């Protein structure tokens, strides 16, 4: 399988561990990542205040993928929704597609909107498959009890094609169990990480992340597995501030699924960028008998 690799602005500009771990593990599972000769932001951050700017930015990426004749693999939930919403919008509104192509033609690009965009979760679960992942496990995570965070933009709105069910998503937990670990449910499982609020009401956003982490801590979980760089920023990166704001401990090891997968496949923590995680991942690693 070959995909154009679209990490998205957040992974590309600061959440380096996601890109590092994805580049390590995916080729081992038969997924070849092809670098885009050029790219731009998916447009999601500016979408609300300037829908046309969003449509142009998202459409431009899809047009580039169509020019390169390959489907896109994305790491970020927001990017995935952004592209799917644009694909839908240009189907609904031919006038929009015309306007976009009028702009894109000035750059020698053309948008049809037929290219597929797959989130790394879909590639791993639906294409590579649980069995192949099981076979790739060198170091079983048996004994670890882990919690899953899907992230809002991965599962909503269900009126558009989304990678998993909006009320009872299963794929991430199935992938975690494929590595030998068991999974724990928790009341705040579908709750938002707060990143969408971070730019405007930082304290409340961090409280939201803190509540989620708290809910996970209460189950005695060994760690939280995430799929999106925005979610990671909040859940992995803001634990100390959340603790201060909520007045209680919210420490939970947090890591990307690709990092977890890499550990199970026998990669060293640094190769997977685990030295960049801000949450106490050593606890998780020692549970596996591994050190940084």
């Amino acid at each position, binding site marked *: 399988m070959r995909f154009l690799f679209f990490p998205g602005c957040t992974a590309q500009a600061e959440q380096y561990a996601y890109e590092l771990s994805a580049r390590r593990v995916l080729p081992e599972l038969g997924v070849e990542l092809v670098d885009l000769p050029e790219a731009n932001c998916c447009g999601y951050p500016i979408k609300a205040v300037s829908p046309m700017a969003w449509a142009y930015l998202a459409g431009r990426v899809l047009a580039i993928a169509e020019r390169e004749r390959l489907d896109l693999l994305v790491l970020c939930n927001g990017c995935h929704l952004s592209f799917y919403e644009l694909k839908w919008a240009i189907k609904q509104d031919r006038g929009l597609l015309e306007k976009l192509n009028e702009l894109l033609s000035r750059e020698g690009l053309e948008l049809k909107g037929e290219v597929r965009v797959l989130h790394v979760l879909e590639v791993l679960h639906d294409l590579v498959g649980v069995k192949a992942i099981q076979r790739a496990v060198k170091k079983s995570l048996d004994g670890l009890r882990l919690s899953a965070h899907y992230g809002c933009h991965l599962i909503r709105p269900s009126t558009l094609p989304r990678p998993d069910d909006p*009320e*009872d998503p299963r794929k991430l937990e199935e992938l975690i169990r494929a590595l030998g670990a068991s999974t724990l449910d*928790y009341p705040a499982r579908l709750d938002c990480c707060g990143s969408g609020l971070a730019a405007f009401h930082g304290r409340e956003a961090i409280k939201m992340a803190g509540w989620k982490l708290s809910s996970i801590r209460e189950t005695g979980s060994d760690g939280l597995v995430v799929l999106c760089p925005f979610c990671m920023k909040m859940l992995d990166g803001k634990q100390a501030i959340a603790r201060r704001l909520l007045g209680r401990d919210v420490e939970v090891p947090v890591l990307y699924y690709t990092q977890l997968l890499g550990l199970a496949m026998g990669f060293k923590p640094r190769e997977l960028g685990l030295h960049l995680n801000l949450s106490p991942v050593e606890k998780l690693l020692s549970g596996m008998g591994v050190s940084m």
Partner: protein
Amino acid sequence: MSGGGSKSVLVIGGGIAGIQAALDLANRGLRVYLVERQPSIGGRMAQLDKTFPTMDCAICILAPKMIECDRHPNIELLTNAEVKAVEGSAGDFRVRVLIRPRYVDPDRCTGCGVCTERCPIEVPDEFNMGLGPRKAIYIPFPQAVPRLALIDDRYCVRCGLCERVCEAGAIDFSQKPEELELHAGAIVVATGFSLSDASVVGEYGYGRYENVLTALEFERLICASGPTRGELLRPSDGKKLKRIAFIQCVGSRSLRPGHKPYCSSVCCMYATKEAILVKEHDPDVDVVIFYTDLRAFGKGFQRLVEKAREEYGVKYIRAKPSEVREDPATGDLLIWYEDTFTSEVVEKRFDLVILCPALVPSETNRELAKTLGLEVDEHGFFRAADPLISPTDTHVPGIFVCGFCSGPKDISECVYQASCAAERAMEVVLGAGR
């Protein structure tokens, strides 16, 4: 219509509507075939504990009518049976009915129930909505009419224990499905309703959380003849219930895929009724009804709501929860909600959450509609010739509908409509009288 054809009427469906229609027709001297898919008549009303707004014991007011049907010389009860084919026209319908075997001889069985005690196979009890067990050989419920045992062939392993203990020698494994050909001058359809699948509204956790139940499951829980003998104990751990929430309009009044857009008409009232029953069991239980509109439009309805609120302390909160979450450590349920009157957003913990799901026509309606040539609307309800002025006529002369199968309605409305349909059927069969 001349009165020259058959003087019999076929009634399809043995719930309160079918029973009422059958009695009205039989009392006028007509021969009635009452065909019921289940092994006993009684329908949904037999599953209820009490009825609104009177708070009568449901089976207490229903059973006398059920027994009257059984005893009436003009009524032939065909239970465990289905209508398979219909030909002909008003005045002269030829109907093929399939009677599924009970493997119990109705002439010998005394309904003593000893066989059910000896049977080693336990399966979920549909009458109790799966909350408790029954045996592979069973009597549907204590007041079943006819009071006969039957064997569920899906589970029976033919061990023969029932045969050995039956003093009446009523077990008969050689029984085969029986086909009957009936003649009827008119047909009255009263096939009732089912609950929609509440798991379609995934955010409320039905099917995932043990302590989230549908209202009909709860009705069985609170009923003295139910799986907990009427004790307010919750499914997950048998803990005594102290905090209960009802959520109205679950999968109804909703345009979302798989949901129903219409109002099911009776839920606001039956939730009020169930809330009062809870308070009568234990006044210290905290009962909350989360609603959007409180539909208390019938005679005595608003008074019952006020009674629930003022006398019993039932809390009505105008709020619609977005999600029901489970605390895995305890099985308790957590609900965040905005009280739309105060704009306050709070979280409350409950022992049990009861969902009032959309009420839908029986699954068999669409097929029956084809068999009879009737029209159904987009929701599967039978279409009346005119909902206002011919509410029990259909587009097929000689075939009439009544009860929930033509649209949501409460018990008293089912009874009115049943008598109406019976009267319409009588006109066909007895002639115009001019």
